[in-house]
């Protein structure tokens, strides 16, 4: 296989003909996540006939439409449940779910929780832009306190959902959160998550200049992208500062969103366990037959 070196070649391989450019707004982070995913898949060298994408409703959920692969664009919040079925029908598939913060942690929260708990062998790429973008900027469960949305015109009073933290608590095998402005760590992390057996979650903080930015004094794309740099911190740095830093330094990073790999464990995935169960039943039956004879 010829190794792909440029974005042009990458696009020719992974994009569905005639679909690009995207419907995404100017300055939106979704396309970046898609490209990172392409690079990760390219480096893994997987047969794209065996990579199946599923998505729900929302901006993120339009992504499979741009990918030259089998894709199931489903109902709002249900993509993970659909993906569970796809994987069950053929555990050889690599199943990737693109979802958004509203889709995954709002309407689809329960499906997310249980797929993570069951350790279903799929990769969920959740693009978190703090808002319901496609429907025009309504309040999302991940929206920071005080942020403005069409349905929170006086500022959000609900505490935001930390979905990565939740996934860790549920015992997902791989959990990581990244931004979109620095490519190399996320691509490496995507590779790890995709290869991981069991449930992996990759959360991406992605700017939404139109629905979120304009209402939250971040309408300027550059300013919006810079907000993420100023308000995030690598998990390792955060921990170090919290341990060794001065009070002033601690106060500075206290409210920043941490990025990095939060969990990387090797619990057996659902389908691994299911196979073991099937084999156990087989053995038992063979033994019983032997005893009869």
């Amino acid at each position: 296989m010829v190794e792909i070196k440029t974005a042009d070649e990458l696009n020719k391989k992974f994009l569905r003909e005639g679909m690009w450019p995207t419907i995404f707004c100017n300055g939106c982070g979704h396309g970046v996540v898609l490209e990172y995913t392409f690079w990760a898949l390219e480096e893994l060298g997987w047969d794209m006939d065996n990579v199946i994408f599923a998505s729900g409703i929302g901006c993120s959920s339009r992504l499979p439409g741009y990918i030259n692969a089998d894709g199931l664009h489903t109902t709002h919040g249900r993509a993970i449940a659909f993906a569970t079925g796809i994987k069950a029908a053929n555990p050889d598939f690599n199943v990737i779910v693109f979802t958004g913060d509203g889709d995954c942690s709002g309407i689809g929260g329960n499906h997310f929780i249980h797929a993570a708990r069951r350790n279903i062998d799929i990769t969920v790429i959740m693009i978190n832009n703090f808002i319901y973008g496609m429907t025009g900027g309504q309040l999302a469960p991940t929206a920071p306190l005080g942020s403005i949305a069409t349905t929170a015109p006086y500022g959000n009073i609900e505490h935001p959902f930390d979905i990565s933290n939740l996934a860790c608590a549920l015992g997902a095998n791989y959990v990581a959160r990244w931004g979109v402005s620095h490519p190399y760590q996320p691509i490496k992390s995507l590779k790890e998550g995709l290869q991981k057996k069991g449930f992996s979650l990759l959360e991406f903080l992605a700017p939404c200049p139109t629905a979120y930015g304009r209402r939250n004094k971040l309408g300027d794309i550059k300013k919006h992208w810079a907000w993420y740099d100023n308000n995030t911190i690598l998990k390792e740095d955060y921990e170090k500062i919290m341990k060794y830093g001065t009070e002033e330094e601690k106060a500075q990073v206290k409210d920043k969103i941490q990025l990095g790999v939060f969990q990387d464990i090797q619990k057996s995935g659902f389908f691994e366990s299911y196979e073991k169960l099937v084999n156990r039943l087989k053995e038992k039956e063979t033994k019983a037959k032997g005893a009869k004879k």
Partner: protein
Amino acid sequence: MIEFKDDWCKGCNICIDRCPVNALEESDRLNKKGVRPPQLKKDNKCNYCRLCELICPDLAITVIPEEIKKEDKKTLLSPIGGKTK
């Protein structure tokens, strides 16, 4: 060199903003969306770090280091605004 697919560009200028050596600028060209896609400055220190290529939300930038010969192939993907043919 850097190749820009003009009609894929939506004009966010993130590439210009993020270039570590400040090698990009808005061009004079107008694409069919009415935005000015970026271009390399005449005088630039581009070191082919590929950051612009990787963070372009619309996959419109391709960085081709001088040592790689560019194949003169047209992309299969036709830019028609996210709609099907």
